[in-house]
Structure formats: structure tokens, C-alpha cells
């Protein structure tokens, strides 16, 4: 049982602050999903965790020991990059075997472990090939195998699936999730995709502009984002956000849309709010008696096969509605969509969460 602890870690590169006061404590046997948009500092954070970069200030502790200045060679870490990084002049076998050989393991043992790991990642038939002779997905499998075989206490993955095509990504994602579940290491998995974070489960660490915005069990963070920024990051398509003024049981947008707030929302304080609703909580059909109908103009209907993303425009406000099934709506058509007030998020002036939908299940899977 080891822990990785980051104490007020800052990292400056030139004049740019890449990491801003990171305080985290990660425990072994758990999966941490580092979620954030590009330039949020995910890679910088992983590099500091690995020991590839030194924090400008702050300390890194592994198992209570200060390792801030310790070189990466003397730490027990493994890393998978976004680009498929393998040793181009080694065969897949030698690639996977290299960390084991460097540890000084005996030949038979190396062979056994390499074959086991290769089998786990379904690249056993490719062991004698060079990385350049593999497809992108196979190359990344090789890189992941090399990281897994080492059995390091800290396994870092920096958007490992982002350069793969959609189908391969889904396939590898589910495989990886199963692989991580059996690990006793601290696994840190960086991604920009909320979907991926939800599939991976575990704990989520949401980042933005070099800061940790929120961390906790992934589902909990998803259901109760602590701020409007977290909600925006952890939502795909981005959460619909509207500024409203609440007075006398009604939320009023500057453009004149009025949303009656009944039931448990009646006790909300008066004043200005930022109101958020996920695209999948809006619907093209009325689903309950409390639903509020909003009429708008269709800007675009993106059909992704099993679902449709309809972009609405209503009095200079843009809304995205995610609806199951195929709904070919013409551009410029007038249509209605429905909003369930029970699914609304209310954020205060500073962006802090004031009210999350209580009807959502809050099972803590992690």
C-alpha cells in the first residue's frame, strides 16, 4: 500500500504557470481519471508525478518519502504517451522485455512475463515484428504492454487512446478498464473526454488552467460538479448555461424566457444564478407534466447514428438537445424542446454549485 502525495506543487515554464498549487493524495489500487480540456495542465501534472519534470515549488512524496528531486530512473513508474512511443529498432518482444531486462530478471522469467502481458493485450502473434510494421492500435498496445509488464507502483497514461480511431478506442478502453481493476498500482489516466472518464470510473480529478477544480469519485463529481467550470468540463456536449434572475418562484432570463420553479426548487434564494442543464436532460418530447416547453429555431441537427444533437436558438440563446434516435430536422425549422426543472443545476454568481438535481441517482460505485 503506497500513496502518492503532492503538496502544493507549482510548475512554472518560462513565465507561464502550468501547475498552480496542486494538492492531491492518491492511493494504490485505485484508478484516477485526470479530466480536463487541452492545456489544463494534465500532461504537466503527469510529468511531475513521474519525475520527468521537477516542480518549481512544492513537494512530491511516495509512501511518505520525499522524492521531489529523485530522478525518474530511480523511481518505480511506468508511462504511456499520447503518441505511440516504442523503441523503433527493437522488436515488440524486446520492447516489452526491456524494462524487465533492466531490472536484471532471469531470461526465463522475462520470457514468461512478456508472453503473459502480450497475451493480455492480444499482441502475441506480433512479438517478432518491429513497431513500424504495426498499426496505430497495435503500436499503442505494445506501449501499454511495456508499461504494464514493469508492474510499477505508479502507472501514468497520458491520453493513450486519443490518436486511435473510434472503434479501436472503445475496444481498448473497456479492455484497459478490466486490466486496471486487477492492478495494485496507482493508475492515473488523463483524458479530455467526459465519456471516457465515466467509462473508466474510479476517481475523477477535474483540472482547468493548471488547477485541480474538483476531485472525488467519478460519478459523484459528474452528478455534483462543484462549480460551473467543472460542469462545463465534465459534460459532453458542454452543459447548456443560461444566466437567470430568480424572483417570486420564477427564473427569468435577460431575453425574457420565464421558467416557473415549483416543488423543491421553490425555496431557492432570490437573485442572480447561472442555470445549467445537460443536453441529454433536454428532450424533443414532453416527458412529464412539469416539463417546460421552449420554442426555438433549429440551427443544426447532427445525427450520430443512434442519437441526434439538435442545436436550437431561442432569443439569442443557444441550446443543445441530445435525443435518442434519428431526428432529421431542417435548418431554420421552428420546433419545441422540453426542459425538466428537476434536472436543473443552479450555480451562484461565483460559479459555485448551489443546487444539484436531487432526483439523480448518487450511487458511489468507487
Amino acid at each position: 500500500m503506497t500513496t502518492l502525495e503532492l503538496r502544493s506543487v507549482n510548475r512554472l515554464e518560462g513565465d507561464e504557470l502550468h501547475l498552480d498549487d496542486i494538492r492531491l493524495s492518491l492511493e494504490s489500487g485505485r484508478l484516477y481519471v485526470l479530466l480536463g480540456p487541452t492545456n489544463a495542465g494534465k500532461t504537466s501534472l503527469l510529468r511531475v508525478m513521474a519525475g520527468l519534470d521537477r516542480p518549481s515549488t512544492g513537494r512530491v512524496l511516495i509512501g511518505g518519502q520525499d522524492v521531489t528531486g529523485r530522478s525518474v530512473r530511480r523511481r518505480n513508474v511506468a508511462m504511456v504517451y499520447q503518441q505511440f512511443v516504442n523503441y523503433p529498432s527493437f522488436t515488440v518482444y524486446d520492447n516489452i522485455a526491456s524494462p524487465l531486462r533492466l531490472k536484471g530478471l532471469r531470461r526465463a522469467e522475462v520470457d514468461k512475463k512478456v508472453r503473459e502481458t502480450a497475451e493480455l493485450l492480444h499482441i502475441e502473434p506480433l512479438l517478432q515484428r518491429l513497431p513500424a510494421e504495426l498499426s496505430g492500435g497495435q503500436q499503442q498496445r505494445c506501449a501499454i504492454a511495456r508499461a504494464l509488464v514493469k508492474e510499477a507502483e505508479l502507472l501514468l497514461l497520458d491520453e493513450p487512446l486519443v490518436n486511435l480511431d473510434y472503434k479501436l478506442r472503445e475496444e481498448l478502453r473497456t479492455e484497459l478498464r478490466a486490466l486496471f481493476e486487477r492492478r495494485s498500482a496507482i493508475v492515473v489516466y488523463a483524458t479530455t473526454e467526459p465519456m471516457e472518464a465515466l467509462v473508466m470510473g474510479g476517481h475523477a480529478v477535474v483540472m482547468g488552467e493548471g488547477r485541480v477544480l474538483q476531485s472525488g469519485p467519478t460519478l459523484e463529481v459528474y452528478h455534483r460538479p462543484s462549480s460551473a467550470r467543472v460542469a462545463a468540463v465534465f459534460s459532453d456536449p458542454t452543459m447548456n448555461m443560461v444566466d437567470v434572475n430568480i424572483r417570486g418562484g420564477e427564473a427569468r432570463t435577460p431575453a425574457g424566457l420565464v421558467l416557473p420553479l415549483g416543488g423543491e426548487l421553490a425555496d431557492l434564494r432570490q437573485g442572480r444564478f447561472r442555470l445549467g442543464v445537460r443536453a441529454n436532460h433536454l428532450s424533443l418530447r414532453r416527458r412529464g407534466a412539469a416539463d417546460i416547453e421552449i420554442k426555438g429555431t433549429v440551427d443544426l441537427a447532427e445525427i450520430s447514428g443512434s442519437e441526434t444533437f439538435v442545436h436550437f436558438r431561442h432569443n439569442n440563446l443557444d441550446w443543445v438537445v441530445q435525443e435518442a434516435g434519428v431526428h432529421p430536422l431542417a435548418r431554420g425549422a421552428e420546433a419545441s424542446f422540453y426542459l425538466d426543472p428537476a434536472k436543473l443545476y443552479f450555480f451562484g454568481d461565483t460559479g459555485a454549485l448551489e443546487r444539484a438535481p436531487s432526483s439523480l441517482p448518487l450511487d458511489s460505485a468507487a
Partner: protein
Amino acid sequence: MRLRYLALIVYFGFLLLPIYWLVNMSLKTNVEITSGLTLWPQNLTFANYVTILTDQSWYSGYINSFIYVAMNTAISLTVALPAAYAFSRYRFIGDKHMFFWLLTNRMAPPAVFVLPFFQLYQTFGLFDTHIAVALAHCLFNVPLAVWILEGFMSGVPKEIDETAYVDGYSFPRFFLFVFMPLIKAGIGVTAFFCFMFSWVELLMARTLTSVAAKPIGAIMTRTVSAAGMDWGTLAAAGVLTIVPGVLVIYFVRNYMAKGFALGRV
């Protein structure tokens, strides 16, 4: 289309004519060379080659040249590999200026450096040794090698270095077994350029040697004997001097363009 072929043929004709003439001469007797125009040897003879390969005063020139060229190539690569790695991987104060300054070393004519080198080597007792010429040629070859190698090294993603460190490679082991195989084309091209510049350089090689390390180029310029000019032997020596270059070019022919672009293609 046919015009293009014709133009190419004419072009190659002009290019190869001097070389043909050299080979032609090397297979003739001195009498035939001086007696008039013959397009190919009338009395084919290999006597000129036999002279060179058996006469110690001739073949020692080749041996001397090979020794200092090999020494120079080895020194240049050994020095330039770490230097190029540093330039390609690390940022330090003045790195850009230093990198450019290296190249300016090639801009000065060798004649400028002949006198100081001569005096210096005399003082240190290095005059007329192979290492003297090899070191002198480093003045031109090390900057060139650094430039070419830096280009090739920058083509290797930095993540490979980091992955190796994460895996636990020590720096020397990583450099020898992971990194060098990745830039072997660059090392080949660099070695070729070092070989070439050192092999054809005459001024310094001649000035810094007298007897013990006299290069073939110098021997060829001193072949006027009492019996007059030994044309045939001289031509044979010329042919033999071209051969190593041709062989080396053959091995790196696929990487030449990249080498001339200093690895930046």
C-alpha cells in the same frame, strides 16, 4: 523526351570525360601518353599500378592517408555525438550562438590556420605525425559533424529518451543501444562527410607532415623526377585515390540528400 535523354547523355559525357581520361592514361605507357592522341590504350599495361602497389614510397602515402582519415573520423564522431545530443535535447544559455559559431569555423580558409598549426605542432613535437593531421582536420569536421548529427537527432522524438529513462535505462546504455541505432543513417552520413573532407584536404596534410606521415596527395605533387614527369604512374595514383571515395559514396547513397541538408529534411 528524347531531347531530355540526349541532354543527360551529353551532360554525363562531360562529367565523366576527365575520369575516363585518367583511367585511360593510367593504363598506357609513358611513351604512348606523350606521343600523341589515342582514345584507348594501344599497349594495355598494368605496370603503373604494379609500381604503386609495390613501391613503398607510393603505397605508404595511401596508408598514411587512411590512418589520419580514420583517426579524424573516429575523433570527430566521438566528440560530435555528445555535443549534437546536447544541442538537440537541452536548452542552455547561448546554445543558439554556440551552434552558429561552430559553423563559422568552416568559413575561414584552411590557409589561415596552417601557420599557427605548424608552429604549435612543432612546439609540441606533433609535427609529421598522423594525429597532427587528424586533429587539424577536426577544425572543419567536428562542426560539420555536430550540425549533421543534430539534425538527425532532432528527428527522434524526445519521448523515446524519456520512455527509456522511465524504463530504467542509464544514459550510456540508452545512448548506445536505443538512441544510436535510431540515427545510424545520420552517423553513416556524418562519417562519410568527415572521411571525404579529410581525404581530399591537401594543404594542411602537406604542411604538417614531411616523411613519416606524408599523405598520398602530397606524394602525387612531388613526382617530377630526373627522368621527367611520370604520367602513367601519376594517373594510376589518381585512380586509386578516387576509389575509396566511390566506395564510401556507394554505401551512403540513399542518405546523401539528407546529409547535404544537414539532416534537416
